[in-house]
């Protein structure tokens, strides 16, 4: 079902050290409801078969609307939540079968920066303690070494060392997000999930933080898994893009080709919905998505996008298109868009 774009010919992605992290048929299902009077529990298919390879030092952006499963995918990839089925490999090691001890050791390399820099920093801890905590828990070194590392981390994200004594509420949103980044980078990870990490920031601050992330990626050889709903940020920041709809990837490609020539109708409609900062282009008739996202508890038969797709035909209502390779790109559609 999946083509060579997603599964390199080497057969085992494990042996290919250009691949940092890969998933195979990853699923995460939640049971909801149920109980004595509620009838049988229903299943939410939050992630429903995701196969993906993330290459070393790339920025892979995952885009989609709220509820499509992008945050869940980011968390399951790091085993912050356990997958229902499927495998996750990090540099050849199967994370899904890993015991608590070895997983804990590997966590140093796998980190996450959250969206809301206020909710994700403990308000009762000084910045110095916030940064020291992950260092201590991974046995970084002596207290003096940890102190030095905290100062180094602050400088790395462009903040003065005086902030070590401050509390999160004394910092602005942009500064707090810098702390969130510094904390994630404390133990020198190489794979970082950024979950809507700049979405809560004002546009001028957002640009500063994106520039910082970009510089750090170059300096520290980081790989980013960048979860966002903001396509404009993706366009400027990502090397490759995966488009997610209702728990599935519907299209994967390089940023260039995806924006120049989207293959999946959903990708095209998502891109055409972004307001463009050019008043001369307003009023141009643009295709618009109809209706609302179907419930992940009650997925439509066939292609799960067909209820919103302006091009849906009979087969789309019956047969689920898998993610297929098309001219070196991957798309899950019976009738990929042509030029």
């Amino acid at each position, binding site marked *: 079902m999946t083509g060579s774009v997603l599964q390199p010919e080497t057969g085992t992605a494990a042996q290919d050290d250009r691949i940092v992290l890969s998933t195979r048929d990853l699923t995460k299902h939640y049971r909801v409801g149920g109980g004595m009077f509620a009838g049988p529990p229903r299943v939410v298919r939050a992630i429903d078969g995701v196969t993906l390879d993330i290459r070393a030092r790339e920025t892979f952006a995952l885009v989609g609307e709220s509820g499509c499963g992008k945050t869940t995918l980011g968390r399951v990839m790091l085993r912050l939540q356990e997958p229902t089925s499927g495998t996750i490999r990090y540099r050849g090691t199967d994370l899904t079968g890993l015991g608590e001890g070895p997983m804990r050791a590997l966590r140093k390399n796998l980190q996450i920066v959250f969206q809301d820099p206020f909710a994700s920093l403990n308000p009762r801890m000084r910045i110095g303690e916030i940064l020291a905590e992950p260092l201590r828990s991974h046995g970084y070194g002596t207290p003096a070494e940890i102190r030095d590392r905290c100062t180094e981390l602050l400088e790395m994200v462009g903040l003065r060392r005086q902030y070590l004594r401050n509390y999160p509420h004394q910092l602005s949103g942009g500064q707090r997000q810098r702390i969130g980044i510094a904390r994630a980078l404390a133990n020198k990870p190489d794979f970082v999930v950024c979950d809507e990490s700049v979405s809560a920031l004002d546009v*001028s601050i957002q640009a500063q933080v*994106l*520039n910082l992330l970009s510089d750090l990626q170059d300096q520290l050889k980081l790989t980013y898994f960048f979860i966002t709903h*903001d396509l*404009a940020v993706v366009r400027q920041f990502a*090397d490759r893009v995966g488009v997610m709809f209702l728990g599935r990837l519907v299209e994967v490609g390089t940023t260039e080709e995806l924006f120049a020539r989207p293959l999946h109708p959903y990708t095209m409609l998502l891109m055409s919905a*972004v307001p463009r900062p050019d008043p001369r282009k*307003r009023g141009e008739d643009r295709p*618009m998505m109809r209706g609302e996202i179907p419930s992940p508890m009650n997925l439509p038969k066939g292609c799960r996008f067909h209820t919103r797709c302006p091009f849906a035909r009979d087969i789309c209502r019956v047969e689920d298109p898998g993610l297929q390779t098309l001219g070196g790109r991957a798309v899950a559609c019976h009738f990929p868009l042509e030029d």
Partner: protein
Amino acid sequence: MGADDPILSVRGLRTEFSGDRGDVRVLDDVSFDVGRGKIVGLVGESGSGKSMTALSLMGLVPRPQGNVSASSILLDGRDISKLEPAAMRRIRGRDIAMVFQEPMTSLNPVRKVWEQVGEPLAIHQGLGRSAIRKRVLDMFDLVGIPEPKTRLDAYPHQLSGGLRQRAMIAMGLICEPKLLIADEPTTALDVTTQAQILRLMRDLRDRVGTSIIMITHDLGIIAEMCDEVNVMYAGQMVEQADVFDLFERPSHPYTRGLLASIPRATVARAARRMPSIPGMVPNLAKLPPGCRFAPRCSDAMPQCQRPPDLLPVGVGHSARCWLHSAGAALPEGEMR
């Protein structure tokens, strides 16, 4: 009133809060107009005063901590700046209505949607339940709520975010207000739903002639929706222009910085390092003495130590910047 007179004309709006550490002026001498049937944007970052402008106009600034004053606020020719709270209540919801960012938190979760959407009719027009229900149904139709009959008796949690925001817009428009203030009406919505809501608001303006103040941090929305734009920074208007002028001839360095730092879906990955404005928005309790933007401004000059006035730089185009007050034009090469 003549058809050419603006529906809203604000002059010298000033809002202050008093607290333990003294008074903070969150709006300083804010003046702007909203033409009839126009969509006028208020754009700026958090803390710029754009939402506070809306709350001040609506008479919703909490007292006694907050204090609103203005030379005049003419709504359809009538000065509402000195009205008592009771008189203001009669205007709110009838003549000026507001749509907020988060439709879930602005709707009562335990009351049916139609009762809430129709509430302004009960308050301002004293209509009975069946008349209200019928009007709500018409409004649901107008704002494009599918199967409107079945939605009347829904509770807010039974509607999606997009439908809730449509219901909020229906509530805002139900008394046919002279002015609708939309405060970040699509910020909590997905981009596809946002596009639907923005199209709805544009249609309403075209069909019903509603005048709209659109408050947003998103310059893309400004470009798609607005006729006139007011750029706010640290409680002041820093630039006012026709939307085309603003995007093509931005005059204030802050506006130019904002425009440059928008990630553009049309810019190639090669341009990955984005232009950004250094520093951050100043604390309103500790404002710099002169131009409030000067500490972040790459064009700052000695005279920026004194506060600049909002002065014309072109037809219907003003900026609060010494570059223009001094008669000096911005170097061509620096234009976007």
